């Protein structure tokens, strides 16, 4: 008897999961991007492996599917895991498009020869430094490196102009670094590229000697800073907005922006790529173009608090200002190759045991 109930539940489950209705128009956040009627199917489909999370980017993909009539399939996951999966799948991957939270996994796929070339029409939608010169990836939004700090312990005037000052005695045992985090490793790669490997390595060694503490990711640093467990930490700007939205005034932390010229205020881009094995190149390029369209760029800055990279959209006024260094001076193509070395140096510094 119980077996029968179970079996019928399971059959119901399979039926339930296999049918999904086509909406005629969108609601919620997706409707802010595309308020119109949905097109009927255009016979195209695109499969995305997305390292950007569902909460942030699903409305965009829904809007794309509705507006163009393209059938959109997504596998969500951590960018690193998805890159490993694509590498394992090789030519037979279902993915047409891979969206990465940071450049490192893109560099990994590129060095394994798995990325195709994006047409110059799409690439030219962003500034030159925000796409690969080889045409393998294009940036579609940005996250700025900042320092989050506890507002009960510090006020902005007491904070330094540069990450180089953090090695000073007054910041002993105060600073958290997300050593194993993808965007921290990317940031360190650019650091090495800008200031030279020796300077960057020395800075990290000095930080470790100065009692810098390791945390596994941006989120945990922002959360710990909000509680006062640690005074400050180097993170992406974005997480503090979420923590504030979620916890309100009990979250006692704010973002601090270093001097604009400082490496500490670098912009890290999120990147879109098309797999070399894709047979849906046209639909994939349409999607990339859509990501760079004005309504979507506007959504990124207003709703996910990120920096727009295209369509002349200006950053939401609540975000720290972007200036010289972040745009135009960093060669992101270096990131792929440098990622490996940066990881090695970070591990050798001993920060991971702090």
């Amino acid at each position: 008897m119980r077996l029968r109930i179970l079996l019928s539940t399971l059959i119901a489950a399979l039926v339930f999961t296999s049918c999904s209705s086509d909406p005629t128009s969108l609601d919620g956040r997706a409707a802010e991007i595309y308020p119109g009627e949905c097109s009927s199917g255009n016979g195209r489909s695109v499969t995305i492996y997305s390292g950007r999370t569902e909460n942030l980017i699903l409305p965009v993909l829904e809007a794309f599917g509705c507006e163009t009539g393209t059938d959109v399939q997504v596998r969500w996951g951590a960018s690193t895991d998805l890159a490993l999966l694509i590498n394992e799948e090789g030519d037979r991957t279902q993915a047409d498009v891979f969206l990465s939270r940071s450049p490192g996994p893109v560099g990994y796929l590129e060095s394994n020869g798995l990325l195709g070339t994006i047409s110059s029409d799409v690439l030219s939608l962003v500034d030159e430094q925000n796409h690969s010169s080889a045409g393998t990836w294009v940036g579609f939004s940005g996250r700025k490196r900042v320092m989050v700090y506890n507002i009960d312990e510090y006020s902005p005037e007491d904070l330094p102009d540069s990450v180089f000052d953090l090695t000073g005695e007054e910041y002993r045992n105060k600073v958290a670094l997300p050593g194993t985090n993808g965007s921290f490793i990317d940031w360190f790669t650019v650091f090495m590229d800008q200031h030279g490997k020796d300077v960057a390595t020395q800075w990290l060694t000095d930080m470790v000697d100065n009692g810098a503490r390791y945390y596994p990711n941006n989120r945990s640093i922002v959360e710990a800073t909000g509680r006062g467990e640690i005074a400050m930490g180097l993170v992406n700007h974005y997480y503090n907005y979420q923590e504030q939205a979620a916890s309100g005034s009990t979250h006692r932390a704010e973002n601090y922006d270093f001097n604009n010229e400082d490496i500490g205020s670098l912009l890290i881009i999120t990147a879109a790529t098309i797999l070399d094995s894709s047979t849906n190149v046209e639909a994939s390029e349409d999607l990339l173009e859509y990501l760079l369209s004005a309504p979507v760029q506007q959504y990124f800055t207003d709703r996910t608090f990120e920096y727009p990279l295209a369509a002349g959209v200006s950053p939401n006024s609540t975000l720290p200002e972007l200036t010289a260094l972040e745009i135009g001076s960093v060669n992101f193509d270096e990131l792929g190759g440098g990622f490996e070395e940066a990881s090695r140096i970070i591990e050798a510094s001993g920060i991971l045991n702090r």
Partner: protein
Amino acid sequence: MNQAEIKHRGPAGLQIAVLGLAFLFSFPALYLLWRNFTEGGDPLELIATRRILDPLWRSVSLALTVSATAAFIGTALAWLTTRTDLFGKRIWRIVLPIPLVFPTFIGAAAFIRTMNPGGLANRILSEFGIETVIEMRGFFGAWSVLTLFCYPYVYLPVAARLRQLPRSLEENARVLGQRPYQTLFRVVLPQIGSVVAAGTLLVFLYTISDFGAVQLMRYDTLARSIFTAQLADQSAALALSLILLVLAGVIVAFERLFSRAKFTADEALVGEPIQYSLGKWRFPAIGFVSLTFLLSVGAPLLALGDWATDGLLRTTRGGYPLTIDREQVWESTWNTFSISVLAGIVAVLAILPIAFLIARYKSRIGSIAHSIIIATFALPGILIALAMRFWTLRSDWAYDLVNNTEVLLIFAYIVRFGSLAMGILLVAVSAVPKRLHEAGKILGVNRISRFARIDLPIMAPGLGAAAGLVILSTMKELPITLLISPLGFSTLATRIFSSFEDAFVAEAGIMALILVGLSSILTWFLVIRRSDHL
């Protein structure tokens, strides 16, 4: 082949089935060997460097201490909730397995949020003038959180075993004037020793495979080295994983060697198990159970509940809206329920033949299958996922048949969690008294109806507990679900992950609470209701 030999090794059909199962379970190990070979991974060279010895030592010492404490807590809780007049036993039985269902990445984070400086517990305590500044991190943090989340690996099987022990031995002991604690040490513990050992082994292996908790507690183990190296130095990551597997193999072999389990029971189960009165121990006992519950379930739930209510209040006050809607939550809840129940049932069906071959026939093939399955538990989920994908891609036939289907997903779950069912099923199979079988045979009952009428009813609580362990673990499983589920398939765990990654803590909190609720219902249905009605 003469009759005695057949009896020794088991029926040929069963042996072949078990060989096939052993082969399927060895996919991840074969994948690691193959990839190490093709990628030029050199485990021996890595072992020679200190860089590996340190994390290796940290993994082993953490796993040993977590195992010891989880074994103690799990066994004590099992005894108190099955054999004593502990206050509120039925409630404890529903809530004590809950820690199993916290995905460690959010469970540990919630634990930290409650327990660490400035956290919720601190704020509550400081209202009463108590200032505590214990920071959960490093070895201490990893040890405490893993102990608190892993004790159910011991608790569940031991509780199932305790409810099944023949009454007669304990009665004899009592009649012979043994005091309750003497009975416990001389009669009960020897009978549950092998189950405690099997559960503890799982705790050990889980601890060396865990990434979520050690990462958040900032304790640099071998599993974390593997994750750190994955993109930057893949051959090193593969070599490290192989070292992990070898370590697991050694531990499993040791366990087999020392706890040559006496999986036999010639005593029939007669009546309800003996209940002991706690007497003056009743307050320390309830204190111990409550403290374990408060730390392992209460502390994470406090933070999760805080996140969830903040989020709900925020939306009702017209603040930043939640990024999940009811339909998505329902869909994930349903997927979580159906896929994990299915995985639990299939796991029991897959492991049962192996348990039969070992417990009834002491077969070598059975032992080999057993070792492969248990050792695989030490591998991080992502390796299982990559291995499964790798092997389906080797054959067009398999690819067309299972790729992008729930079949592959369930197969991967079974490989990941089959080990959890093994120990309990071994006990369940051996709990069937031989003489009942012989009686059945003499009466001319055929094998199938002997199984249905003698074995199944006696094994039922064990089957429920085994399926329960697999189900609770599958419900929180993350990397496998993310990487090899059909496109668009989401579970509560995958949505919690998505939300939590980008600090959507309200959404993560709400779905984690649903996960806990769902697991409590299933625990009640599978583990408790069944056994109480026996």
